[in-house]
């Protein structure tokens, strides 16, 4: 049974590649990244072989605790548990649970995160290769630790499967997850500072953790090296017992889940709420704008990027507080304008096959393009004004206000025009509707990268006049260039916007069915 499940998982992985060679490329990039992280981890652990035993023990135990916590938390916050071997799919096969369980656990290891975890954990064996007994202890500990990771992760995902399947939880958790991701820089800096302040406190923390199920397995090697045989024995018991309890709980939950699949209920709501459709004009372009703006607010794939926007000034402010000068803060408005405008460059891909409605209704390309751009403008235009004035006020660089405003408006309209052309012609691999914004999207990842890079390059070329005026003011310090930018940005951007909507619209009119065929392929 175990062998069956392992070969099934392996088959699924290989067959995934057969869909498109580009998927292999995407997977290879992910594997290279994971390999780099793994290599760094293993190298660190090997280096610890010659470190002071107490430092080594602290690092190994706390690292192990983080590893277990990661396996438990990451599927929760990304709602993207690996469901290729979803236990629900085995309900009709009457596989004895006792055989299914170890099979699922080991199959959970087959995959990039599992293999990386296993390799890093085996690195601890090298750390404690200071004698036969510590080495054996570390080996047992590593295996127990890895199993704890997998089983705890499976237990949590099974327990909250109902919650994970509920749309509202998915939406919220995936948006919230953006925040730590964007603020990773400040958070890491803060953590390092905190760790520096509490360096004396860490060995104590590791000692405490080593008596808990999270850390017990990882402390075996170090304890044996230090000669604490009794403590090691007790911790071995703790590690075994917690693994057994976790597996038992998983067994019970799985038994229940097999007969009562999670159900997603929703409350029904009555008619009478036209929402944004009542606000925008009742034309095709107005309807597209209302629909897109509704999506900006309701769909986590869009809403996620909206959550990022207010965090941008925080990032810039943080960078300023590190360097002691807030002058760079004035870049926040143009950067926001650029990011917001470019975010609709994959708009049709986000529609997925729902785009069939536009095709069936015979929407004209220019209405489609204009509506999508209007929805983005509704949010981006006020933001750009607020950020421009706000950043000038905080940095005190009022003399830059006209230049930055012109440059931001130029970037916004140029970007929208370019995105209108790009999304009319090329599809990108993006998460499907209803899926987590972090889920590895199906389809053509390599084309997506090429389109994104080429698009950004084109954007840089189109923005040369605005950039030149910023440089001119920076070099000469003359405000005349700023006022010129305030005129050039909106005029040039506006012209490019109109041209982009026209060109993108014409392309979409001509190639609508081909776009739809690509979307159906990427699905």
């Amino acid at each position, binding site marked *: 049974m175990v062998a069956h499940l392992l070969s099934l998982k392996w088959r699924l992985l290989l067959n995934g590649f057969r869909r498109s060679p580009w998927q292999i490329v995407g997977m290879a990039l992910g594997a290279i990244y994971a390999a780099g992280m793994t290599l760094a981890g293993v190298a660190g652990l090997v280096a610890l072989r010659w470190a002071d035993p107490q430092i080594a023990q602290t690092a190994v135990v706390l690292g192990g605790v983080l590893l277990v916590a990661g396996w438990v938390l990451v599927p929760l916050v990304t709602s993207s548990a690996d469901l290729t071997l979803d236990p629900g799919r085995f309900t009709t096969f009457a596989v004895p649970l006792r055989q299914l369980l170890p099979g699922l656990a080991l199959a959970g290891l087959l995959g990039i995160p599992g293999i990386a975890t296993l390799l890093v954990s085996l690195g601890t064996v090298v750390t404690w290769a200071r004698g036969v007994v510590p080495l054996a202890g570390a080996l047992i500990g590593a295996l127990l630790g890895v199993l704890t990771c997998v089983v705890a992760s499976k237990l949590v995902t099974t327990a909250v499967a109902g919650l994970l399947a509920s*749309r509202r939880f998915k939406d919220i958790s995936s948006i919230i997850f953006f925040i730590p991701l964007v603020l990773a820089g400040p958070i890491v800096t803060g953590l390092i500072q905190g760790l520096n302040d509490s360096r004396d406190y860490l060995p104590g923390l590791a000692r405490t953790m080593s008596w808990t199920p999270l850390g017990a397995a990882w402390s075996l090697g170090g304890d044996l090296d230090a000669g604490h045989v009794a403590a090691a024995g007790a911790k071995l018991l703790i590690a075994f017992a917690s693994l057994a309890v976790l597996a038992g709980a998983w067994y019970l939950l799985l038994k229940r889940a097999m007969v009562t699949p999670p159900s*997603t209920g*929703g*409350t*029904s*709501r*009555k*008619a*009478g*709420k*036209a*929402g944004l*459709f009542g606000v925008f004009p*009742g*034309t*095709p372009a*107005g*309807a*597209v704008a*209302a*629909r897109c703006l*509704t*999506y900006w607010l*309701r*769909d986590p794939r869009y809403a996620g990027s909206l959550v990022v926007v207010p965090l941008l000034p925080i990032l810039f402010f943080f960078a300023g507080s590190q360097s002691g000068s807030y002058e760079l803060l004035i870049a926040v408005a143009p950067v926001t304008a650029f990011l917001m405008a470019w975010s609709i460059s994959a708009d049709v891909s986000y*529609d*997925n*096959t*729902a785009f*069939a*409605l*536009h*095709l*069936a*209704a*015979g*929407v*004209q390309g220019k209405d489609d393009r204009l509506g999508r751009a209007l929805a983005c403008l509704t949010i981006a235009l006020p933001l750009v004004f607020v950020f421009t004035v706000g950043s000038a006020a905080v940095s005190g660089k009022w003399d830059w206000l006209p230049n930055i405003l012109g440059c931001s408006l130029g970037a916004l309209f140029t970007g929208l025009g370019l995105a209108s052309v790009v999304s009319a012609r090329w599809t990108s691999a993006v998460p499907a*509707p*209803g899926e987590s914004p972090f889920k590895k999207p199906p389809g053509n990842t390599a084309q997506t990268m090429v389109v994104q890079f080429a698009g950004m390059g084109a954007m840089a070329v189109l923005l040369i006049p605005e950039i030149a005026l910023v440089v001119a003011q920076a070099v000469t310090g003359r405000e005349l260039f700023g006022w010129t930018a305030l005129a050039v940005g909106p005029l040039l951007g506006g012209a490019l916007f109109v041209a982009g909507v026209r060109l993108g619209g014409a392309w979409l009119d001509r190639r609508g*069915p*081909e776009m*739809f*065929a690509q979307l*159906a392929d990427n699905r």
Partner: protein
Amino acid sequence: MSAPYPDHPVPEPTPAPAASSAAATVPALALRGLAKRFGQKIAVNGISLDVPAGSFYGVVGPNGAGKTTTLSMATGLLRPDHGTAFVHGVDVWAQPLEAKKLMGILPDGVRLFDRLSGEQLVSYSGLLRGMDRAVVESRVRELLGALDLARDAGTLVVDYSAGMRKKIALASALIHAPRLLVLDEPFESVDPVSASNIRGILEQYVASGGTVIVSSHVMDLVQRMCDHVAVVAAGRVLAAGTVDEVRDGATLEERFVSLVGGGTRTEGLEWLRTF
């Protein structure tokens, strides 16, 4: 009718259906030598078909027969390799915007804009077609009432059941009062009550002069509901005409099995009777 692919690249000549001189006889939907190939696989191999105006037309065929591909090409969603389609004499591929005004379509297996509420989605479909907002509002109310969705009008479509999604998609296809309805598997995963609800609406629509073309693999349903039927298999039309002509005294299901072939082998599988 010659198949375009075995002796390609000669496409079948595509005469337009009779022009305005005989307006009464212009078919609601006329397919002329439609053909499509995906890689090595020929999905549709030269299908020509006339759907008379005012008929309730069923397209039946086994899985993979090319029903969905044919209907996609007939409705402007998928560009054919050869041939074209005419809706009330308007060429779908030469004048797509005019043809799409005459058609309401329910494609199978495509997503909906499901982050909209049911009523928003149907309104969206109307507004996209350039309809007046007041007209859209009153029609949405009536459609949702007729399809028994009024109670869930404000619920997001993503929280709908599969049957409700079919019904809301049908409402989106009806909002602009099309002269021709093309429905791909409209009864799949729809409960019996909703199915008879939908049937009632469609029969009323046909009675008042509209034309409906449905694809299905439920023979019983097609025999009871439709007046015309076409049997499609392996990308070709095997038989077409009124239901009585096609079934020729037998039931439609028997006739279908004898036309399509296969599935009659009942010997073997003895172990299944020994438990």
